[in-house]
């Protein structure tokens, strides 16, 4: 959607509402909000064309703080509400905000179906690996063994990986970013917006109250160089501090970490070059790299093209109108076998 020429320049402040922001001090949600508010003016979309749709959870309070159209719906169903909005008004820029509980516990089905239909919407999944709003129960992304009020001796639920789940559901755009990394997140948000089709972003988010430090080694700038694999299309899979860089290569089908010397291009040393458009099995392999042996990929794991759902719905209507003309109610009521009773 290009900005209409007369549209006034928007700034971050145009996207701030007058409501008190009600997250705990230090919550990762604040930085996501700030980044979204910062990116919005750059997208060339008139403010009135943005719609934020959320479910229920701390993260799902998001729409109240965005000075756009917003709908705080019910637990787990935000993708379904968004589907109705996007199908009927394809020109709107629809953003879904959900949590690991909202999107993957009660809402896993709608998430899967939105993704497979490839509706042109953005999905931001705030993954703090805990139910924040209901005060700290484990979630479907919580690590095995996590002690919470519902798992006093440690969680026994094998966690689901949002990224492999999205890929398994046929996602056309899958990315991961970190609450504290503002510039990376902004880039991901822009990429998601550019993508035609469902753009799924997992945002690693800290909940200082109920799951503090769950992503610590990825949030910490220093350790992040070792623990995060920052993906860039066409660039080799390298990580680690300069001078001690490492790379990922594939040896007889098995991924391995190797030391990369600075003397030579990493590609030349056998390091795999990231290709966002590779078949999904490549992204799946990236997403499944075991930790802590391997770093965690952040960035765009996959992007590909597929027709968008709302456009195909629109085609159905246009096709019907073209082939049969605009509907005439009188004709419809009088179609088929009718008869006249004389007075």
């Amino acid at each position: 959607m290009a900005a209409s020429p007369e549209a006034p320049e928007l700034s971050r402040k145009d996207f701030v509402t007058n409501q008190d922001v009600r997250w705990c001090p230090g919550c990762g949600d604040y930085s996501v909000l700030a980044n979204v508010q910062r990116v919005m003016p750059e997208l060339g979309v008139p403010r009135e064309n943005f719609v934020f749709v959320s479910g229920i959870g701390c993260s799902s309070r998001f729409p109240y703080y965005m000075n756009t159209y917003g709908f705080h719906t019910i637990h787990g169903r935000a993708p379904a509400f968004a589907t109705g909005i996007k199908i009927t008004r394809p020109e709107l820029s629809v953003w879904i905000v959900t949590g690991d509980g909202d999107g993957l516990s009660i809402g896993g089905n709608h998430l899967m179906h939105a993704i497979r239909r490839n509706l042109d919407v953005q999905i931001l999944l705030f993954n703090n690996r805990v139910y924040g709003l209901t005060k700290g129960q484990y979630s479907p992304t919580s690590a095995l063994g996590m002690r919470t009020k519902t798992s006093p001796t440690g969680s026994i639920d094998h966690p689901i990986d949002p990224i492999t789940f999205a890929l398994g559901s046929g996602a056309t755009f899958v990315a991961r970013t970190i609450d504290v990394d503002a510039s990376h997140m902004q880039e991901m948000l822009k990429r998601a917006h550019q993508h035609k089709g469902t753009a799924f972003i997992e945002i690693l988010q800290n909940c200082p109250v109920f799951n503090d430090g769950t992503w610590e080694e990825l949030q910490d700038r220093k350790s992040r160089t070792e623990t995060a694999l920052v993906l860039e299309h066409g660039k080799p899979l390298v990580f680690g501090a300069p001078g001690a860089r490492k790379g990922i290569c594939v040896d007889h089908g098995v991924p391995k970490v190797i030391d990369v010397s600075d003397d030579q291009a990493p590609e030349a040393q056998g390091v795999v070059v990231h290709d966002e458009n590779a078949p999904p099995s490549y992204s799946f392999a990236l997403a499944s790299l075991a930790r802590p042996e391997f770093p965690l990929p952040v960035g765009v794991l996959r992007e590909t093209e597929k027709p968008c759902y709302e456009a195909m719905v629109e085609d159905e209507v246009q096709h019907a109108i073209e082939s049969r003309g605009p509907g005439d109610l009188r004709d419809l009521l009088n179609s088929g076998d009718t008869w006249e009773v004389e007075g």
Partner: protein
Amino acid sequence: MGAVNDGPADDSHPRKSVTEVDHVAIRFAGDSGDGMQITGSKFTDTTALFGNDVATFPDFPAEIRAPAGTLAGVSGYQVHFAAEDIFTPADEVDLLIAFNPAALRANVEDVRGHGMVIINSDAFNKKSLQRAGYTDDPLPGLRERFNVVEVPVTTLNREALQGLALSSREVDRCKNFFALGLLLWLYHRDLEPTARWLASKFKADVLEANIRTLKAGHAFGETTELLPTSFLVPAAKIEPGPYRNITGNAALAWGIVASAVQLDKPVFLGAYPITPASDVLHEVARHRNFNVKTFQAEDEMAAASSAIGAAFAGHLGVTVSSGPGFILKQEAIGLAVMVELPLVIVDVQRAGPATGSPTKTEQGDLLAALYGRHSQAHLPVLAPATPGDCFHVMLEAFRIAVKYMTPVIVLSDSYLANSAEPWRIPDVESLPRATVSHPSSDAAESFRPYERDAELLARPWAIPGTAGLEHRIGGLTKAPVSGNVVYDPDNHEQMVALRYQKIEGIVRDIPPIEVNGPDRGELLVLGWGSTHGAITAAVKGARERGLDVSHAHLRHLNPLPADLGDLLSRFRRVLLPELNLGQLSMILRARYLIDIESFTKVAGQPFKVVEIQTKIEQMLEESS
């Protein structure tokens, strides 16, 4: 006779006698695969075209296919046609045509004494009798009670189709049209409408085969000595105008399409298939040139949620389901109540509880519609009375939804859904229109999402894309005008009251109740929904026999018409027949403290006229 039957008359057979009768009810019965629903509906169309009043009752097994020849697989279609006004498919049939022993066994008890039973004698053998659960040959016994006519339908059909390049399975599949031809002869009906329909559906040899056997059946009637008499039901004196047959589901679908036209707004239908509601989605999907988008959702939660999303975006949102699917939508409906968006929710009720009997009828969801959400979540509830009324009720539902900014529930049922009735095609000019307006950017300064219309108490419907009206809605308790989230008890209580008053205020749109019969007296029979036909017929019969009984039928179940309490008080007794355990009865008793007498049936079947008639007689005897 029409074009397809205009060969030279064969005078070698004696002319048969013709008996004129006022009304006839016939039932086609056979295996699910025997095409009974098609046969019945073609007979219906032809009869209606001729000018009779018609009522039908299709009755088919649960969605699954049963083994051929078993009771579980029997499918039936009953047609009642008359030279006078009729209201139900009739309690008993004058003629049953049974394609196999199971069809005979499942249906023969509904044939009136000395009625006619035509059987496909080819299908009666030891094995098939056993499959149907007969241990002895039933025919000798039946011959004493009925006029049993044995026609080797399978053989005659095969003979008629000799020489066509069809497999023997394909040939046998045509035999229902042989039977149809025979019955069209028996009741002096034209072959032409059926032939025309066949020509629009089939091609080449299959078309040829069906037409041939249809004519063969007709010719067989003319020549056979088994049927000495034919019957003529003269055209009925019904209101002049254009007519068509329509089922309740088709009428719902067309009502949805018509709402897009009459309110000049695009429609979004989100639905998940479920018996007996799926046909509404099927039918709407055929009319996308009316600016209607259909969405087959992954489940009912998504169906309802997507429709609410569409409403937020400014479309007419609607969702259609049946019992088990309907209750899955309650959380989303509760949200629609809270955010005060227009939405129409259709529940085509079926027999429960649980999965129950998915193809059978019941009025069991009224209380769930009114009270099935947590907390106080009031909304209007409407119920159509006849198949054709489904069309008008849909228009009314959308009108209320957008005028009052509220979800509205429409309760149809399996009986209305599948029954057909001749329907006077409404003049499009006469249908209600309305213009829906959304606040524009000009109002940006003063816009408050929960500022209400002073009279209607409706909030404004501001839609995304309107610059300056950006706002947030959601399910949390909110402050009256601003809609901001609040936790203040007074705000909460005030909003509960406002929403309640808004719905109660809809009463101003409800016309006075029409009473069929005197508006005071001994006994009022009150009904709602699909019991309309049976009650009308029973009350008509009783009044003709001089009994002091009237009938009123409710279309608005919430809010209730303003004059209802007064009406009830003008009768000494009130009878309320319902296909549930007394749900509306409970509401009215609580509200008016009147000893309404509930009369219930929960058997998956509509009331028979005689059941209500007997009840009326009983009550009036007690009184006298």
